């Protein structure tokens, strides 16, 4: 009798457990990143005639980056006007990240660093042509619009880093954290 009562009390919690389940977990939702940058495109337009327009794009930056179209083929000793475009294609409609960055320009800085392939005489200098509205000692450069000047022929990598520097922007790359850090291959011929 006692055994029976005990086993009944034993079954009660089990029954409660089974009854109390719901199955929300069986329908996972897709991954959603508030701040994904999937696509970075550099568009360079030569300031010489005939006008040369070069674009290079890195895709799927947020997962496994695709660098197959990320090479800039430039002419030596030429000055280009550069525009950096950043997109988040995981959102519908696609989010224009560079427009958002331009709007919050006072806390963003795009830093360009060219590193020639070992032994190559190639050189590229990048100068930001846009300015934020930070109060003095600002304004500081933003770097979405640039002037890019090539030197001798050769090859190398152009590193593009978007720095987020809320309240600490001072015109140098050091403060803040990186939102984007990627490389474009450069061939000067």
């Amino acid at each position, binding site marked *: 009798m006692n055994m029976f009562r*005990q086993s009944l*009390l*034993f079954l*009660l*919690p*089990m029954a*409660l*457990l089974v009854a*109390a*389940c*719901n*199955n*929300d*977990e*069986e*329908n*996972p*939702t*897709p*991954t*959603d*990143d*508030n*701040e*994904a*940058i*999937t696509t970075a495109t550099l568009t360079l337009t030569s300031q010489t005639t005939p006008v040369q327009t070069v674009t290079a794009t890195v895709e799927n*930056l*947020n*997962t496994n*980056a695709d660098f197959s179209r990320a090479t800039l083929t430039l002419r030596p000793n030429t000055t280009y006007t550069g525009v950096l475009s950043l997109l*988040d294609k995981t959102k519908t409609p696609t*989010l224009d*990240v560079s427009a*958002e*960055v331009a709007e*919050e320009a006072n*806390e*963003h800085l795009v830093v360009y660093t060219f590193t020639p392939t070992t032994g190559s005489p190639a050189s590229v200098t990048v100068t930001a042509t846009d300015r934020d509205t930070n109060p003095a000692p600002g304004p500081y450069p933003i770097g979405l619009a640039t002037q890019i000047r090539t030197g001798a022929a050769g090859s190398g990598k152009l590193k593009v*880093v*978007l720095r*987020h520097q*809320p*309240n*600490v922007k001072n015109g140098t790359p*050091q*403060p*803040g*954290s*990186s*939102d*984007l*850090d*990627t490389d474009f291959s450069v061939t000067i011929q």
Partner: protein
Amino acid sequence: MVSVLMGICTVSLAQAQTSCTAVLSGRILDQASHQPLPGATVYIRELGTGAVADTNGMFRVAAVCAGQYTIDYQFVSYQKLEQRITIGADTLTTLPTVQLAPDSRTLQEVVVTEYRSEAQQLLQVQTSLSGNALEATRGQSLGESLKTLPGLYTVQTGPSIAKPVIHGLYSNRIITLNNGIRQEDQQWGSEHAPQIDPFLASRITVIKGAASIRYGSDAIGGVILVEPRPMPVKPGFGAELNAVGGTNGRQGTLSGFVEQAFGGKLNGLSWRLQGTIKRVGYARTPNYYLDNSSYHETNGSGQLSYSRNLPSGSTVGTDLYYSLFTTKVGLFTGAQVGSLADFYAAIARPEPLRQPGFSYDLSRPYQQVQHELLKFRTFVRSDRWGMLTFTYARQQNIRREYDFLSFSRATDPELYLKLVSQTADLIWEQKPVKLANGGTLSGSAGFNGITQGNVRQFLFLIPNYRNYGAGLFAIERYANDRWTLEAGVRYDYRWLRAFFLNEQTSTVTNTTRQWQNGSGSVGATYQLNQRLSLAGNLSTAWRAPNVNDLYSNGLHQSAVAYERGNPNLRAEQAYNATFSLEYTGKRLYLDLGLYNNRIDNFIYLKPDSVPIVRQRGAFPAYTYTAVQATFRGVDATIRYKIVDRLTLTSKTSLLLAYARSTDPATRGAHEYLVYIPPNRTDNSLRYELKDANRFSSMYVSVSSQYVARQNRAPAVSQRQEGGQLIFTGDFAPPPPAYTLFGAEMGFTYRIGTQPLGVILTGTNLLNRAYRDYLDRFRYFTDEPGRAIWLKLRLPLAFGRS
């Protein structure tokens, strides 16, 4: 005078050799409800020894000499009772049952008490925080409060997040029981602090070492029991108000409760409502404020209890309990880094770049967490069959983590995890049986069941999952004369199914894993003489891999790590041995605990693989890996009464932890693990003042805390492999040793009939800049500087006869 004392000593020694075999036993009940008071203490003044009442209120003190004694009976929030007794030549003296009256007025002067638990029917090393020692930690988080106990540490993420660490183990290897319910609040993350309001506790007990038998598998490291004050039984209203203010962070906490017990026809019915609010601004290190380190907490709970005695002599009772814990915790912005390059740049900075002034502002990055608990408990206690308790609880933990936003105007969190846990427990506690040979048998057996469902949103770190767990256990103890022996067995089954979405095909797949295992424990205590007792315990425990160990796959932005699970991990298996020695002399008290915990398949995040490159740059990749680990250490407490009112207390915790190398070249060699607590010693001098006028329980104390440098840490190194930079060990070497000084004073001041408890505490009084090895923000910032705290406590009783 000296010769008189010596004479007494000689007499008692002579008695010890001849007739000191008497066993004293008795029972402690609540005066009004006649319920047992587990945990109540019995103290024989002349012998300086005592015992703790078990779940039936029973206690025994072995090896007592014949003679006259004064006995003190005490329990938290009950009035102390004093009794004179005479022990004759009988071998067993059973004292009349003692009934303690509830008391909401006295400020307990009990300091940290350390005892071998009779209360939990476990012969395991325990340490607990109650009375004045607990009051002195008011306003701090659960983890921080426990740090004062030997063998306990915290792993921190800045000043606002502290996780308790027992003997070097934390997170899922520790079980926290909040009001008897296994707290399920996503403890797997190292920046996930336990969501428990410490004001709920009237006692916090820590079981050090594997304690799986009673509380479930997973408890490889230990168990933290947050025990609320007992429900009122004396008809009338009671209330208590607590206010805590702290200078660092300009923080304030208000907490209080109201309770009522009914009389007459409604006798046995009682209720309590409790709430806490806490607001903390930016913490200040000696040289700067920590940007966005503010946090707040809002908690509430309510309980309704009913119990009645049946004509048959049995008692039945039911409780309904609900609690809600909500917190919003800001994370120091100086620790926000986008990539490994940022991380190294931040480490290289001696001070954070941005050093704003003081503020209570709280913006991204922050965590918002809500923990809800609903508990239903019912019991039947019969004099013949013992006690049967059924408990059902539902917990819902919602965690939202908001990262720093750069360009989007998103209002969504980056991480959303909702964990719903349901537990059901059925426990039978045997009525103690007296055996013909004078021994006593007592024990308990039970069933624990759990199911959990987890739903994630936004970024992927761990998958959705469902799990089921069931456990059966039995513990039996035998006490005779100087010996107490205990043995327990347990069987557990675990089932885990994780759900994954293939985003290309929109199909859902799942993976199921199951584990089952048994665990066992044996323990013994031996009372060598009135002053010295020895205890030893051997136990095994296991822990099934958690969902994050198996299936993590994502960027843990706040940890600057890409974490990958290993779906093939096996369960952790622990073999735990503890030995302890307790000496209670007239002036000297010594408690020495030794432990060795070997854990096979110890799962940890190994930082040794090719970095992952994402949009923000390179991240070190970590993979959950299993090793054979050993945790070995010593906890020592020495208390010496220099003169009557002046006591020196020294608490030292030493720990050595290592893993055996699996590398074929160095197989078996010791490799150190990261985030292992360094050696530590806390020393304090406390002077108790005489009561005067309206002042009582006055004391002043000074303390120093020395924390050694952790020299047994993995080397900070990086190497080139296949053109990739691979990081091993840690990002920065352990910080140097430090010493902090503190002071405290406290007293009780009587306003009318109500006693106002006042405690004034100062920490890091020399305002020393230091970094702590166990703080994950040690790469970026110093620890908080000087802080002065004022803690007020006012218990109120009205309408009570």
